[in-house]
Each structure stands twice: as structure tokens, then as C-alpha cells.
């Protein structure tokens, strides 16, 4: 038996509404199937099961109340041998301890977490950093569910508990937009508090890429045309293969690189706010495949039907304000990720090529890096690789 719990669908989520069950008691669930729909402060998300089994009993009915992350929502029987050797964060299923390997737990920390409240009366196990922070914030460690090894309370758990505390004012957020602002505020404040950012920028000649794209699109039917942004995503993903230290999460005081490259692409929502769901395995997909996936992701992000694996998986974030006329942006890393890549607007500038000054279309690409995980030197190598890859669009 295992508990299916309210998943943590992002660093800024402390609670969510259970909107609907997609499975009934007694029904079999395959890994990857949608089990429930949860509404976060940002959007509605279809939560996938990361195990195969049977939904035995529903503990919480859908409703308007906000349910804290980690609260048991249902009881499942898990089919033996179906706990996956996952790479990315997974949907919350509190599984038998012995079945979890250390790397699995570490990889899972970027998103949904397996919450284990401290046994009653026992002194809560907690990292020194978590104890210090709990003291600063006036939080009783015994009330904090631990998500570390053997239920150990981590610094992130304490921060989570702090953000889950009711804000002094206003008592209840009035609208989705306002709740989204609070969620973004919590994540960004945490990022700026915890992550020592460094920022790098480089200017990249885009003339070859633009010419290639124009030619490629001229030959394609309208429904198969590519947008510029997809080429940037692919180039970032390939550059991360060369500098993998930027791809992953900061977990319990150390960097955990992710083998899989799942860039989260920032998508602005109508009416304000944004989400950054993952384009899975972007380095291994063709441009056509990425384009189809990106188009689908944008539609579903705006329709409020993202999947849990998409919101918890990003190993890095890519954002662009170029379409709004911004020439360069220095973003704030989305914790617990290690880096963020920003793109500005392509602009025509004087450029020296082969000893001659000419007019070229260029963009400013930036990197915000977590200085705990990497130094500027590695960040510079990444931007160098990115610039080089964008000179050979036919190889993307």
C-alpha cells in the first residue's frame, strides 16, 4: 500500500485544490496515466501516476479547500517492481522506503516530494541549516514534514513550511491573478535569498540562423513552419551537453546534475503571470518534433491543462522577452534549478566579419548561474558553445 499525496508541483507551491479525480476506487492505473487534476496558484495541472497499481480508496473529495502539499489524498496498491528508476521529479506517492534508492530521492527533489512527518514525541531529524532557519523563522521542527533521507527535515522543507503559513494580510487571496503573484513572489524571493547569482551576457550573430529559417519555412506547409524560439531551445539543450553542470538542481547543499535535459520554457499567460513547463529531452528531439511539442505546450499552458511531469521536470529555464522589444534580460533562477538562459530581441548592429564592418542581426544571450554550483568560467563556456551552435542551424 502507498499513499498518493498532494504533489508539490513547483518550488512556489505550498498547497493546491483537488479539482477532480480521473480514476475511481478499484480502478487500475498505469504509470503515466492521469490520476487527478490539481489546481495550483498558477494553473490547473493533470497529475500523472508514476507507478502502476490500483486506486484503493479516496481520502479527499474534490472541493474548494486548499490542501497542503504532502497531505494523503488516496490509498493505492503499487504493483511490485513498478517503482520507476526516474530521472526527473515525480508525482507524490509515498512508497515503501526500501524501494527508494538515494539517487532516486535526490533526483526527485526538484519537484514532488515524499513527505514524512516526524514521529510524535521524537526529536525531529533535521540538517543544521534547517535548524538554523527554523529558529530564525520561529517554526517548530516537529510540525514540519521531512522529505530528506529517512524523513530528515531539510532547509527546503523549512522554507516550504514558512511559505505555507498563513500570510498576516490579506487573509485570503482574492483572485487567481493575485494568488499567482504571491506564488511567483515566494519563489523569486526564495531564489534571491538563497542563490548567489552570477550573470553573463554575449552577443550572437543570428544572420545565418535567420537565413536558414527563412529558407526552411519557405519550403514548408504553413502548419509545419518553425518558430525562431524552437531553434534557440534546441541550441541551449545541445550546449548543456557540453556544460552539464548548469543542468540540474541544488539539493541539500550540493549540485545534482540531471542526465536528462528538460528545459522549462517561460510562457506568459493571458491576464498576467507565467509558467515554465518542460520540453522533455530537448537535446534528443528533432526541430519538427520540438516545434510540435512546443506548440502543444503553449496551447495547454494557456488552457490550464499541463501535466504534472511537465511542471516539475524542468532542469533549467529559458526565457525571452525579445518579442516585447527587450534587448537583454537577466533572469532570476527558479529554485532549485541551477541556471536560467535569457534571450533578447534580434536587432541590426554594426558587426565585424572577416575584417570588414557590416550590418548584422544579432541577439543578446544571457546566463544567470548559481555560483554555488558553477563559476563564471563554466558559464562562459556554455555561452560560447551556444553561440557556436547557432552558427550551424542546419545541424540543430
Amino acid at each position: 500500500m502507498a499513499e498518493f499525496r498532494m504533489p508539490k508541483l513547483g518550488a512556489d507551491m505550498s498547497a493546491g485544490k483537488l479539482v477532480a479525480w480521473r480514476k475511481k476506487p478499484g480502478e487500475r492505473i498505469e504509470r503515466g496515466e492521469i490520476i487527478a487534476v490539481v489546481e495550483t496558484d498558477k494553473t490547473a495541472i493533470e497529475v500523472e501516476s508514476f507507478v502502476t497499481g490500483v486506486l484503493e480508496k479516496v481520502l479527499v473529495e474534490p472541493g474548494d479547500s486548499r490542501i497542503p502539499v504532502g497531505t494523503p489524498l488516496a490509498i493505492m496498491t503499487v504493483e511490485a517492481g513498478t517503482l520507476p528508476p526516474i530521472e526527473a521529479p515525480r508525482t507524490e506517492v509515498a512508497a515503501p522506503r526500501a524501494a527508494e534508492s538515494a539517487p532516486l530521492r535526490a533526483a526527485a527533489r526538484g519537484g514532488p516530494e515524499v513527505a514524512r512527518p516526524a514521529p510524535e514525541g521524537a526529536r525531529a531529524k533535521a540538517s543544521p541549516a534547517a535548524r538554523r532557519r527554523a529558529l530564525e523563522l520561529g517554526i517548530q521542527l516537529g510540525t514540519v514534514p521531512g522529505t530528506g533521507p529517512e524523513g530528515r527535515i531539510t532547509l527546503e522543507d523549512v522554507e516550504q513550511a514558512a511559505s505555507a503559513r498563513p500570510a498576516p494580510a490579506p487573509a485570503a487571496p482574492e483572485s487567481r491573478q493575485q494568488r499567482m503573484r504571491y506564488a511567483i513572489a515566494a519563489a523569486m524571493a526564495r531564489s534571491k535569498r538563497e542563490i548567489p547569482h552570477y550573470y553573463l551576457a554575449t552577443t550572437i550573430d543570428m544572420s545565418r540562423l535567420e537565413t536558414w529559417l527563412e529558407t526552411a519555412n519557405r519550403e514548408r506547409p504553413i502548419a509545419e513552419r518553425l518558430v525562431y524560439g524552437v531553434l534557440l531551445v534546441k541550441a541551449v539543450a545541445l550546449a548543456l551537453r557540453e556544460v552539464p553542470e548548469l543542468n540540474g538542481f541544488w539539493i541539500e547543499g550540493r549540485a545534482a546534475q540531471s542526465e536528462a535535459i528538460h528545459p522549462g520554457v517561460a510562457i506568459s499567460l493571458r491576464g498576467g503571470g507565467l509558467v515554465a513547463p518542460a520540453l522533455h529531452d530537448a537535446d534528443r528531439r528533432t526541430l519538427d518534433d520540438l516545434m510540435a511539442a512546443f506548440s502543444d505546450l503553449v496551447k495547454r499552458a494557456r488552457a490550464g491543462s499541463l501535466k504534472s511531469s511537465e511542471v516539475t521536470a524542468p532542469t533549467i529555464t529559458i526565457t525571452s522577452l525579445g518579442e516585447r522589444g527587450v534587448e537583454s534580460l537577466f533572469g532570476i533562477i527558479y529554485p532549485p534549478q541551477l541556471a536560467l538562459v535569457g534571450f533578447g530581441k534580434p536587432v541590426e548592429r554594426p558587426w565585424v566579419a572577416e575584417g570588414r564592418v557590416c550590418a548584422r542581426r544579432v541577439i543578446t544571450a544571457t546566463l544567470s548561474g548559481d555560483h554555488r554550483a558553477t563559476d563564471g568560467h563554466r558559464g562562459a563556456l556554455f555561452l560560447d558553445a551556444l553561440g557556436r551552435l547557432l552558427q550551424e542551424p542546419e545541424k540543430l
Partner: protein
Amino acid sequence: MSTTRDRILRVLGDIVPELEPSELKPGVNLRDQLDLDSMDFLNFMIALHKEFGVDVPEAEYRKLLTLDGCVQYIEAEKPAG
């Protein structure tokens, strides 16, 4: 019978659900008015293609940046009948 303008507005409404046709300024850039990004605009072009059978080359997107521009372009390019 729906006019070309009505049909374009209906197509646009599928891309931008909060669209208020009466508030749309026909001579002003749609991307600025409706906060359309390049993916929205491509989806708009694809939807116009489905609705009118007009395949707009990428080089001519600039002619469809306003509602008036869209009407003019579609009227000129849509298959007869």
C-alpha cells in the same frame, strides 16, 4: 451570411478567448493590441489557412498585422467561390 471580417474575428477569438471584437482597433497592430507572441501569430495564420484556404508566406506576415490588413489580404487571395 458572415463577412470576411466576421470570420477573421471568429478565428482570432479562438486564439484569444478574451477578445472583445467591438474594442479591437482595425488599423492597429494585432500583436500589440492582443499581446500575441510568435506562436500565437503562427497559429492565427494556420487558422486563417483552414478557414479560407489561403496559405500566407512567412515573408507576407507583415501584411496581416492589423485587422484591416487581414481583411484586405484574405479578400485578395482567397480562392474564388
